[in-house]
């Protein structure tokens, strides 16, 4: 199964870079098992990055009301219209991008898993994450690598149904 791991974010906006940092940590671990890329993209641009793969893991920052920083949410595309990065006046969201790719008859991944890491601070101009977010990157990397390489691994991610605050 051809797999891509895509880290999204901005490394000069504190926790917004968590997807990139996780992808960098996964690059060596997954050599030969998956393509690992990092990008500061969304919407239409993701079609080109994702096409040709059977399975995609996307790692990004997320900001949900009332959630503890460092909580890792495991989602499917239909869950993620609520993230700031993927709801923009300037572009389409990931769900639409995937659907558009399929309608254009591109070979889009049939399995897409999104890991959203709850941020503490994604607005301060700073390299590196806050301690709460930095502290989960290792476990997140282990979970993704374990899943792709089909080896025993602990899971730190939770589904959106496990949210503390379901309003937002």
């Amino acid at each position: 199964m051809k797999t891509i791991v895509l880290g999204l974010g901005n490394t000069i906006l504190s926790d917004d870079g968590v997807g990139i940092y996780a992808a960098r940590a996964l690059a060596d671990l997954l050599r030969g098992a998956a393509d690992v890329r990092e990008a500061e993209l969304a919407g239409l641009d993701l079609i080109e990055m994702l096409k040709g793969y059977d399975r995609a893991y996307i790692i990004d920052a997320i900001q949900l009301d009332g959630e503890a920083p460092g909580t890792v949410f495991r989602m499917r595309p239909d869950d993620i219209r609520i993230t700031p990065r993927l709801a923009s006046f300037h572009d389409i969201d990931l769900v639409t991008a995937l659907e558009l790719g399929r309608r254009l008859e591109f070979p889009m991944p049939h399995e897409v898993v999104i890991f959203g890491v709850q941020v503490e601070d994604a607005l301060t101009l700073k390299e590196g994450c806050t301690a709460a977010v930095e502290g989960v990157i290792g476990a997140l990397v282990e979970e993704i690598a374990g899943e792709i390489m089909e080896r025993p691994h602990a899971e730190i991610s939770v589904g959106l149904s496990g949210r503390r605050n379901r309003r937002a």
Partner: protein
Amino acid sequence: MASGKAVDAVYKVKIPPAAAKLRELYYMAHFMHSHTAHFYALAAPDFVVGPDAPPAERNILGLVGKVGLDLGKQVIRQREIMQVVQQMIGGRATHPVWCLPGGVTRPLTREDRETIKGFAPGLVGFAELGLKLFDDLVLKNKAYLDLILGDGYELVTNYMGLVDEKNRVTFYDGTVRVVDPEGKEIDRYDGADYLDHVAEHVEPYSYLKFPFLKKIGWQGLKEGKGTSIYQAAPLARLNVASGMATPKAQAAYDKMYSTLGGKPVHKLMATHWARLVELLYAAERLAELVEDDEILDPNVRVIPSTTPSEGVGVIEAPRGTLTHHYWTDERGIVTKANLIVGTTNNNAPISMAVKKAAAKFIGKGGEVKQGLLNMVEMAFRIYDPCFSCATHSLPGQMPLTVEIRDASGETIRTVSR
């Protein structure tokens, strides 16, 4: 790009010609990338699928369904090329890492130049296709033409944009020109002097400011002759200019103004047309720049030798005139900054356009349909606003709510997106 120009000014350094051309080359690809997404993903569905079509259909998926898969594939492919060009020149497509005080970090290689030269004809053709689509799908449809020419989407203000020495549209460098609602030049200045020409009004209900022309003074949210409000978006740039600096874009510019009855045009929906004229200009300018042999000159940076202090950088962002102003200490550490981003210029016009559209389409005692939301959205969508840039707020959703009130001010219905 504006920050790059601002730090050049902070260090009082004039960058080498090749560096300026490389920055402009990168910027043409960026402009195309931005304008393409707006037209095909955000604007065209209103016209091709229909302004009051259900949101589930009124999107790029609906557009592709109506116009065909080949167009969708072209949009994706050409956007990818625009990203590749930016990455090739700037190191990264988004947040490039090669602009420095005094120029750029590296010259263009011969190999990369040849690659970009190979892309150029396709990019120009793609931009021409956009104008053809607009012609076929919008201008030849009486209902849509009526929508463009109707008074629901009209706003009479001053206009601002950068122009070159012949008053033609320019994006990377030029002089700020302002014309009044009749098209007469009422101001012209070097971007570094913006504080003498533009001021920002504050209203207690918003932390997004309302720029206005200083010499006229704040007159409130008022349109028509004498207003101090200006617009700075694609239509404004074309209204301000005498024309375009490339041949095909000039022909498209002439066609637009002859169709719409001369200059300036106050019909807001013409902004979509103007954006496509700019898309063609950016493609043609990219092709010109990459053919220029000076683009390969390895001299792409002047090392600054003066003590940094203060500087202003002004460019045309896709959404309007973008101003960065930095004050630094003697080490070059920024101690104060002021930004007027594209969308901020258009804050007052957006507010006024939304109000006019709502008043027009709601009507007295009329039925309020869900489609009304989109008719109102269309009034601000033409500006391609970046409220997150302008306000530094990322709510993560579109918090659009329309409240219908009766004559006494009582809310009788609320419609949310």
